[in-house]
Every structure is written in structure tokens, then in C-alpha cells.
């Protein structure tokens, strides 16, 4: 191995450097630092509405950082331009929260879509690779079904097969465990781990499933209250005395993270209009 090879491996596939993300003038998350290396499974955890999906949108270039830099495959995502972004995206796989399957195509064609659109492989190879990926998520025999004929959990598994069919170098999973039964959940978690080890790719999971993500992740980042609350290996975080981390991991109702959505002047005005004094 030459020095440059070693550098290439050492360089993170995805890096957030003091990043602030948001929509318009509103900042959702600030001061985010993150490094994701080859062969690693990274779990981004946080409660509902903590901005996890916003992080994923930043990593795919759907939104640009308000401050700081996001580097994907060594390139600043804000500076690559449209063609550069397209080239970067060809090396990524993304599992969307709702699956985002194409409703006009059947299960097989959904998984075949990236192969047909982005590669020139033959029809036999497409069939072989798609059936192999569908087999990995346990849905080989569902290849012929329409999207309207499969359940929500099955749809997520199809979406997973589609995200990995090109065997990308960086795979981003938005809530891969949501809506899965316990059997599928364990299998999918192992699939993500196995794929990461075999392809030496990087997997970034956005999730709030503590047990499953801790069992497969190399590194865990906890976000909340508009910033990064903690990071470390699962073992370190389990032993953490940080009150935020403890409350989140143990699912305690009381602690620094409020269950109730905070009051706002707009809400109080609305209440007054209803004739209720806040």
C-alpha cells in the first residue's frame, strides 16, 4: 500500500465541519462535526423533530449548509456545481423515510431503476442483480408485485434493496428500522452491517431505535436541541453520565429533553383567540 492509498482510506467519505443547516432564515442544527470513514456504520440518533432528516438532506446536497462545510468523497458539496453533485450522488445510495418507491413501476422495476438509468449493464445482469438484492431483503418472490400490493414494511425493504443495488460507497438510511417487525428488523440490521463490511462502504443510519443501532454501529452521534449533544462508540455512550444521553438512551420521561413541544407567542395568541388564557 502506498502512502496515497493510505491517505485515501484514512480520509473520511463524509465529513461535516462546523456545519449549520436549516431552511430559509431558520437554523435547525448548528455546530455539527462528523466524520464517517470507510467500513464504518454511523448512527445519527435523536428524538422526533431533532433535525436528523435535515442532516441527511445536507449530506445529499438537497440543502446547502448555512455555515461550515460538508465534504463528500473529499469534495465540498457546496462548490461542486450541478454536474459535480450528480457525479457524487452516483456514488451514494439513499433510503428515504417513506421509501419513495415509484408507484408506476412494480417491485422489480423499482430496484432495477438505478441500474437502468445509470449503468449500461445487460438485461440478464439487471435481472440477476435485482433478484439477488431482493433476496437479501427477503422479497425475491415479491418481484412481480405492484407497489400498491405490498405492505409498508415490505415497501421499506424494497426501498432498501433499491438503495444498495448499485453497491454504493456511501449509503444513507433515513429510519431504516421504522415499521419493521422484530424479525425483519434484526435481519435488516445485520444486512446493513454485513454490506458495510463486505463492500467497505460507509453507512450512515438516521434512527431512534437505540437497541438495534447500538448493536451494529461503530460510532453514534446524538443530536437534539439544535446541536450535537454527544458522540462516541456505543459502549462509551451507554456508560455516559451526560443527562441528555442517559435520558435519550433509557427513554426516561423526565430529564433535560422535554417531551412537550415548547410554547410560543404564536400558540399563546391562538389560545387567546379560542378564549383560553395561557
Amino acid at each position, binding site marked *: 500500500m502506498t502512502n496515497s492509498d493510505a491517505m485515501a482510506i484514512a480520509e473520511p467519505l463524509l465529513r461535516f465541519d462546523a456545519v449549520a443547516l436549516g431552511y430559509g432564515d431558520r437554523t435547525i442544527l448548528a455546530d455539527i462535526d462528523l466524520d464517517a470513514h470507510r467500513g464504518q456504520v454511523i448512527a445519527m440518533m435523536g428524538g422526533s423533530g431533532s433535525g436528523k432528516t435535515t442532516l441527511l438532506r445536507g449530506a*445529499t446536497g*438537497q440543502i446547502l449548509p448555512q455555515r461550515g462545510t460538508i465534504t463528500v468523497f473529499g469534495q465540498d458539496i457546496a462548490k461542486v456545481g450541478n454536474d459535480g453533485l*450528480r*457525479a457524487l*450522488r*452516483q456514488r*451514494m445510495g*439513499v433510503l*428515504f*423515510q*417513506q421509501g*419513495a*418507491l*415509484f*408507484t*408506476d413501476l412494480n417491485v422489480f422495476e423499482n430496484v432495477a*431503476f*438505478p441500474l437502468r*438509468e*445509470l449503468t449500461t449493464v445487460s438485461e440478464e445482469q439487471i435481472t440477476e442483480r435485482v433478484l439477488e438484492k431482493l433476496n437479501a431483503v427477503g422479497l425475491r418472490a415479491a418481484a412481480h408485485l405492484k407497489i400498491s400490493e405490498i405492505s409498508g414494511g415490505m415497501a421499506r425493504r424494497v426501498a432498501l434493496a433499491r438503495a444498495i443495488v448499485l453497491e454504493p460507497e456511501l449509503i444513507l438510511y433515513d429510519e431504516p428500522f421504522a415499521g419493521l417487525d422484530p424479525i425483519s428488523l434484526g435481519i435488516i440490521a445485520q444486512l446493513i452491517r454485513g454490506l458495510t463490511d463486505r463492500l467497505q462502504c460507509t453507512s450512515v443510519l438516521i434512527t431512534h431505535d437505540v437497541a438495534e443501532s447500538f448493536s451494529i454501529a461503530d460510532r453514534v452521534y446524538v443530536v437534539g436541541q439544535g446541536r450535537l449533544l454527544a458522540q462516541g462508540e456505543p459502549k462509551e455512550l451507554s456508560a455516559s453520565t451526560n443527562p441528555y444521553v442517559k435520558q435519550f438512551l433509557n427513554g426516561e420521561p423526565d430529564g433535560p429533553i422535554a417531551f412537550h413541544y415548547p410554547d410560543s407567542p404564536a400558540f399563546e395568541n391562538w389560545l387567546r383567540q379560542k378564549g383560553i388564557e395561557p
Partner: protein
Amino acid sequence: MSVLFRTISGLGGMVRGTIYHLGAFTRLLAAILRRSGIAVSRPGLVSQQVHFIGNYSLLIIAVSGLFVGFVLGLQGYYTLNRYGSEEALGLLVALSLTRELGPVVTALLFAGRAGTSLTAEIGLMKAGEQLAAMEVMAVDPIRRVLVPRFWGGVIAMPVLAAVFSMVGVIGGWVVGVLLIGIDSGAFWSQMQAGVDVINDVLNGVIKSVIFGIAVTLIALYEGWNAKPTPDGVSRATTRTVVSGALAVLGLDFLLTALMFSN
């Protein structure tokens, strides 16, 4: 004072909004045309849409054409009969259909049948994050989704208009010749002598192509810009019918003035 101010600013807002939409509409057309190479490199995508848009509109177009033909036959006969020239019924029916009713009524039905389904489909694809997913996969959704649908609509529309006119002529013949008893030879020979291929038929085809471009583009634009909610998609679908119908009628006036004035 404030009422005056509000009125003026409201008017200004309307003008700005209209200019904005016209600009966005033209940009979408330009974006579609720039990416139209896929229609040539993957003709299967376009033929699928011609099938979807055209074939499923065929029944409503044919049935409407038949009834419009029946009515033209009846009304035409009553009017022509006053002047003793009922043999010209074939000519009247054919000219009305090829010049005006074929392209216009087909485009109106097309906006209601195919336009709405295009808008709803694209709006729902947007609501289901399908378009965002495509973009993140490095697949351009304008090229992959809009271009085949655009060319599908533009190809299907003149064919549907031709079917409408053809069935309409048969409808006129059924009423005029079979029911009223006009001489069949006179019906067809007057039509053959009086209908000009370039002036009447070709102009009708040009009209239907332009209507096809307008209606399909409006449907795609509305779907593409729909709010990704059930309410947003339903509003966009309604706007497709309203804007599509108004655009067809407005364009028809302009085109008729250009084509048939001396």
C-alpha cells in the same frame, strides 16, 4: 387611502404573479426541450406514455366525436335545408370538424381526461418524495418523468383529434344520409371537392399539435409546481382543467385569425 393602496398593490401583485408564472412556464418548456434527447434514445418511454395518454382517452374522444357529428348533421341539415342546399351537409360537417371542432373539442376533453391524470400523477410523485428520490439517485426527474410525458401528449393529441374528426364525419353521415335521407353520393363528393388538404386538414393538424403542446405543458407545470399535499394536488388538478381550457380557446381564436383570414 389604505383601500386605494391595497387595490394598487393587489393589482401589482397579480401582474407580478402572472409574469412570474409565464416565466416559470417558459423555463419549464425550455428545460423539457433541452432534455428531449431521451425521447430519441429511449423511444420506449415515449410510446408507453402515448399508450397511457392516448389509448385511455380514445373511448371518450370517439364517443364525443360521434355525438358531435350527430348534432352537426342535424343542425347543419336544418340550416342548409332553408336554402335548398342540403347536399352540402358533408362539406359542412367535414369543414367544421377538421378546422375547429376536431382540434378544439379534443383538446378540451384531453385537458379533462389526460391533463388531469398527468397533473395528479406528477403531484403525487412529488408528495411521495419520488421526484426527490430520483434527484438524489442522480437521475434528472425532468428528463426521466416530464420529457416522455410531454412528447407522449404532443404525439397523442393530433392523433386523437384525427380520430374525433373521422368519427364525427361518420356521425354526420349517419344522421344526414341514413336518417334524413340525403343522397350519399352528394354527401361524399361535396366533401371531397370542398375540403382542402393544406388549408383545412393541415391547419387543423397544426392547431391540434399546438393545443397538445399547450395542454400537456400546463398539466406538467401544474403537477410539477403542486404543493405536495392532498389539497395542493387537488387544486393543481383543477387549475389544469381551467387553464388548459382557457388556453385552448384563446389559442384557437389566435390561430383561426392567422390561418383563415385573407
